[in-house]
């Protein structure tokens, strides 16, 4: 199943683990996406968002200094990023995490460890939700 997004889509992968960033980049590249930028923390991610047009953010939850949830809240506080798709990566599927992510404005979530198929599936759900919300 392919990812239902144009091949020019730019992804920002935020994770303090270089291994996880490489894994996500690898899956995206396997699906034909080459426009992938990476940030190892939330502050760098915000700088990157300001400097470059990003279409989708995939962020880890557990990161030092700024958690993925805090990053999400910062992103949503900027009007220009109010509809930016953000996929949250959580290490456990706890109800409170899922609710907190959705309430803070996440567009989707994925639980670690995940397979490439699940990542594709979750990204497609993100694109579906965005098209429903924006009416695109």
């Amino acid at each position: 199943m392919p990812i239902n997004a144009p091949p020019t889509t730019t992804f920002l992968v935020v994770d303090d683990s270089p291994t996880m960033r490489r894994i996500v980049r690898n899956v995206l590249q396997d699906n034909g996406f080459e426009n992938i930028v990476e940030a190892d923390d939330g502050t760098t991610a915000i700088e990157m968002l300001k400097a470059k047009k990003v279409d989708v953010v995939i962020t880890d939850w557990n990161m030092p200094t700024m958690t993925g949830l805090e990053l999400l809240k910062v992103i949503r506080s900027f009007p220009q990023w109010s509809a930016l798709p953000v996929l949250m990566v959580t290490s456990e599927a706890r109800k409170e995490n899922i609710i907190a992510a959705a309430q803070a404005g996440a567009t989707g979530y994925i639980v670690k460890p995940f397979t490439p198929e699940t990542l594709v599936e979750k990204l497609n759900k993100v694109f579906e939700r965005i098209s429903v919300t924006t009416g695109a």
Partner: protein
Amino acid sequence: MQDSPELEALFDQVYAELHQHNRSSEQSSGNIHDLSCEQNECIPEPYYSQLGSLLRRLHSTLQELGYDRSIEYAVGDALPDTVERLDFVRKVTAEAATKVLDATDSIKPIHQRLRAEMQQFAQQWQRCAQGSLSLEEFKQLVNDTLIFFQNAPSTLDLLQQHLTQIVMAQDFQDRTNQVLGRAIEITKTVESELVKLLVNGIPPDRKATINNDLLQGPVVNPDREGDRALINQAQVDALLESLGF
């Protein structure tokens, strides 16, 4: 707890409610952020002070309870917790190794078959270039070559799948990193508590022979304790050595 359709439905529900709410109150822009901020600001200052002094009392009480509690913590909670964490690391790394080895075991025969077939085609086409093939042999070679190329994409896709399996197996590093970090932290705390116990129980006749600087015991935050704390392994070693251990 694993991901499930129920959780996905829960996410969908909260997401839908939130966006419904946003649509119905277009006037209030950035309300998600404002809400969370308001929640934080609702906690009054006296509450923080009360919480702080309560924590200070709890900390002091725990200290007054004596170091026997440290042993209880070390033996009862910290070490089993560390063992559990290390066991998790052992399990996850073993799983990752198995996944990688399984993938390479699957790749090898595909690689060998492709290599043998290509070698055979190279020889056949070499004979063809030299004009050594009969018309029938040539027709057969063209047909075989066509089939080989028609099958190549699915064979290469299979290789790609196994390579992805190897890449995905590396997530063990992310999964074990935090667990190992916590296990190291616990082990350091236990060591620190045990050294404190040791220092506290030094017989008076031995005390005189020991460098006074080593008697303060290691602490978690050396900055707060200044120069009097045992801050590194060399100093712990020196203390243990001076005590004859």
